């Protein structure tokens, strides 16, 4: 398994590195969901977005324009989810 902390400092992790905490909230795998960027309108599956973990929360960014697509923070009692930077999430059935 990858370390939960990106210590390379060079680049983002694949979106799939952030799939775990999002799956807990969406009650299912999010890797194949198509996320459309609210900044540049480009679309890519979740697994191909850029993830920053323990930063200290989890941040999903558009690989094209670095726009924040989503943030997720887990506290001891709650999960906070911010999808305001993405215009849509499409889940295959």
């Amino acid at each position: 398994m990858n370390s939960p902390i990106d210590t390379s400092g060079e680049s983002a992790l694949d979106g799939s590195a952030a799939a775990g905490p999002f799956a807990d909230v969406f009650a299912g795998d999010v890797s194949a969901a198509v996320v459309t960027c609210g900044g540049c309108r480009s679309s890519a599956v979740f697994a191909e977005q850029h993830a920053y973990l323990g930063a200290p929360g989890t941040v999903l960014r558009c690989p094209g324009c670095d726009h924040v697509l989503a943030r997720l923070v887990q506290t001891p009692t709650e999960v906070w989810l911010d999808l305001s930077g993405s215009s849509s999430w499409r889940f295959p059935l």
Partner: protein
Amino acid sequence: MAIFTRGFGGRRDPDAVALPPGQHLTEGFPVLSAGPTQYVEPEDWSFTLTTETDEKQTWSWDDLMNLPSEDVEVDIHCVTRWSKLKSRWRGVPVDAFFEDSESEADYVMAHSYGGYTTNLPLEDLLDGKAWVVHEYDDGPIPAEHGGPVRLLVPHLYFWKSAKWLSGFTMMTGDEPGFWEGFGYHNYGDPWREERYAGD
């Protein structure tokens, strides 16, 4: 020189330091970032102080170098539970940037290249409690650790010490930054374990 070594005869190590609650020591320097590493050349860097009346004062890298810097050795505490002792920095006390300021606002939003923000009460930045640092361990601050210039506020959790610092905006009322509005504590005192909103 310490007379008692760690763990010897059950004696307490006289050099042992108390960490804030819930923290553990690290010898390394983990890189935590909410976005891509920003690569800003010193000649391209600037710092802008914007007052509540939208007056701006800007310092270039050369301006920064002409302000009196001091060496700082401080413990830093990350909300992800690592603490690093005696980290060595060099920089300008934040007080220097307010000497000619006519701002009367009590709150500051620190801004970074790349868009990160974090909010602080002004009083937490003054009186030698915070620095605009430009050296780490006797050299330039590596980009992944926020160079060329970052904020250093060692008495608060390290997310308040914004990397790639680009400016301060003065605010008459407090407003949350990137993490403060989103699950993390507004103030972030490690000694009171103010990690999350509501702590």
